[in-house]
């Protein structure tokens, strides 16, 4: 049963990752990206990590994918459907992808990872919470500061200098 779910998730994740990059329309591409992110959340459920899976759904599928969708909508219509790439580069890219997949896959298959199995219970969200407030608390504060800084930075970046405040009011 779990293997069937795993196979289905693999097909959804990898298929929609390819679709996200290859679909003609950027809007459909970003919806396909939502499929990839949702598939990864499914893998997290299979790995007995429901907290991370729900975090992934809330942050990635819920906010990042929607943010990308809105940015795509700000772009001109003909640019959304225009595909910019040349054939030779594409074949070189496919070659690079295959080399990476085959070589890394061979390294992993040849290593001792294959024999790793576990019967122990998965770490639950209680352990994660304790980790966050004990060992990782400086990193947690730093992460909060980085998030605040990046949101402020992106607001400053996207602000239009040529529009006056009274024009904004209208």
């Amino acid at each position, binding site marked *: 049963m779990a293997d069937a779910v795993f196979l289905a998730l693999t097909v959804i994740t990898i298929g929609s990752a390819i679709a996200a990059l290859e679909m003609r329309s950027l809007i459909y591409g970003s919806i396909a990206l939502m499929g990839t992110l949702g598939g990864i959340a499914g893998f997290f459920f299979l790995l007995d990590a429901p907290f991370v899976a729900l975090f992934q759904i809330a942050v990635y599928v819920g906010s990042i994918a929607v943010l*990308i969708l809105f940015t795509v909508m700000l772009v001109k219509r003909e640019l959304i459907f225009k595909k910019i790439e040349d054939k030779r580069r594409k074949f070189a890219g496919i070659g690079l992808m295959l080399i990476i997949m085959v070589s890394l896959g061979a390294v992993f298959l040849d290593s001792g990872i294959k024999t790793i199995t576990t019967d122990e*219970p998965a770490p639950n969200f209680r*352990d*994660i919470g304790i980790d966050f407030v004990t060992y990782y608390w400086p990193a947690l504060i730093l992460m909060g500061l980085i998030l605040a800084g990046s949101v402020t930075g992106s607001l400053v*970046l996207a602000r239009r200098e040529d529009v006056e405040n009274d024009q904004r009011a209208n």
Partner: protein
Amino acid sequence: MTSELIDFTLVSVALLGIGIYGLAVKRNFIRMLFAVEIIINAANLNIVAFGRFLPHSGGQTMALFSIAIAAAEVAVGLSLIIVAYRMYQNVDIADFRSLKG
């Protein structure tokens, strides 16, 4: 749980390959951001899978940190796209050559 660690690792290798293909071939800024997202997700999947099989709670903690930092990265990346689009009226990175020093 019947799936092994190697299965999850191979899925993340495939996603990494697709992401690198996207970064190498696509010239559209937004599609390159998609490729970066796919690579980050492949890394997260690997971290959580190893954390499950060790087993250690550090894997899930690191994945949560990684997801939060990726959210910050996307926010900055999208605002850079908006600024570049406003300046050049295009999302083709070949047009952004004047950013070169």
